[in-house]
């Protein structure tokens, strides 16, 4: 019976007759558990070298749980995300540094406000205690990259929309990530109505710390897909491949600009309920 109830609207959506409403549940969602994985490969962009280029590879996997703290009348909700476990490897860090990263990420907890369309704001660490030091990792950036922004009104199959996702850091610097989506498919899996979204992102990176400015030579581009549980209003899984060419500029006076351009490739995987 449940199947029939799901199948009828599904047929209408598939024929392009009915619209599907995509929205996050920010009002009474149950606690969720996610696995977030990020693989990063950075290579020196040097075509002239005959030897294999200098490179760095890392792999981060965290298990996070998310909890709705407060549901507001305007339809937004305040959530808390807390890291339960971390696994991290890197060919550029020692065993002790790797362990240090696992330990501080393991204590990381942050809160954010999220609207029904998935726009997140005020993504802040609790009490600044776990704020990463220079060169340490911050999972918030990774999470915000893969977070979809949903259409504000119901959409038909094949519909596309694009939104700007504004990401603020603690110092008030802003990064605009342009996200483009297409509703590719709606189907039932294990009795759950799922929407498959194609996602493309692009942004210009410019990050400053006290020593370097890191900027992308052109747009950083990414593409991937999101599986969204339509009735529960939550992400089931997502993948995103991001690629860009970066330049590191040393701020120190008199520093010769000797750091070559670097190609960065990142794969992000997000899975709910694992």
């Amino acid at each position, binding site marked *: 019976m449940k199947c029939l109830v799901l199948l009828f609207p599904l047929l209408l959506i598939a024929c392009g007759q009915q619209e599907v409403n995509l929205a996050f549940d920010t009002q009474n969602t149950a606690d969720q558990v996610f696995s977030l994985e990020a693989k990063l490969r*950075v290579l020196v962009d040097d075509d002239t070298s005959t030897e294999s280029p200098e490179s760095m590879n890392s792999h981060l996997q965290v298990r996070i749980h998310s909890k709705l703290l407060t549901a507001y009348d305007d339809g937004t909700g305040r959530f808390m995300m807390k890291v339960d476990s971390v696994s991290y490897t890197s060919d550029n860090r020692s065993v002790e540094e790797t362990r240090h990263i696992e330990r*501080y990420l393991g204590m990381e907890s942050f809160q954010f406000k999220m609207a029904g369309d998935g726009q997140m704001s005020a993504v802040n660490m609790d009490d600044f*205690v776990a704020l990463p030091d220079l*060169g340490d990792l911050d999972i918030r950036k990774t999470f915000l990259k893969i977070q979809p922004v949903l259409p504000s009104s119901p959409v038909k199959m094949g519909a596309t929309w694009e939104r700007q996702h504004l990401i603020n850091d603690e110092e008030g610097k802003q990064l605009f990530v342009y996200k483009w989506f297409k509703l590719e498919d709606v189907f039932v899996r294990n009795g759950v109505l799922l929407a498959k979204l194609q996602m493309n992102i692009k942004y210009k990176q410019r990050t400053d710390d006290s*020593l*370097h400015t890191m900027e992308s030579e052109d747009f950083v581009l990414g593409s991937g897909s999101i599986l969204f549980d339509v009735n529960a209003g939550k992400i089931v899984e997502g993948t995103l491949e991001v690629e860009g060419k970066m330049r*590191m500029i*040393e701020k120190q006076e008199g*520093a010769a600009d000797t*750091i070559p351009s670097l190609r960065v490739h990142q794969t992000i995987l997000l899975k709910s309920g694992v």
Partner: protein
Amino acid sequence: MKKALVIALMASFTVAFAVTPFPGPKGHKVFLKASKSPYLLENSVVLPATDSLIIEAGVEVFMSGYAKLLLRGSVQILGTSQKPVAFRNADSSDSWNGVHFATGSQYFVVRNLVIENAFRNTVTQSSGIFENVHFVNNYYGLWVENAPKVELVGCSFRRNRFALSVGTGSVHFKKTEIRDNVFGLYLEKGATFVGDTAPIHDNLEADVRRESDEMAGKGRKVSHSVWQRIEAGF
């Protein structure tokens, strides 16, 4: 009678082993007194630029878990040679995160302090003096990053993995000894070091390492810290 004796014994044990929780600021000041020592820092603490930290001579602070002490306001750690201040791990088998000085324009003063078993102690974008400070058995004894002027006077570094690491910035040092560590002084590309390197000796792998020399030797163009910043910033 027996009961009274047991209570008296318990009370004396409680007094003998009592620890004071690391206090929060009162009137924008955190004041650690010798009379209330030892203190226990169970969770990490960040003191904002408006809060100052003052520690009296003879205070001992035990750090549990992966506790981190991040100091953004004015700092005066005023141990004496007879009664030094000590930051130690509460669990002898586990390290703590470390103490981090990010005091900006507020010059920090640290005298007669022992820092043991931390992962990394840092000075970032701050200036100040460490006088008779002993860094023992830390992974990074002291990491100075983009600090205009840090002075080390009469300090020692023993049994650290990386005793003193300097990113960009300037470290001045007098009567400071770096020995019995794995690596002595590590100068990242762009670092300045002012002082006599003679007291840097008997370190297991190297007394003084310069990243720019290592990179040139291996034909590398990208430094360790640049890889890390790309990873952190992307």
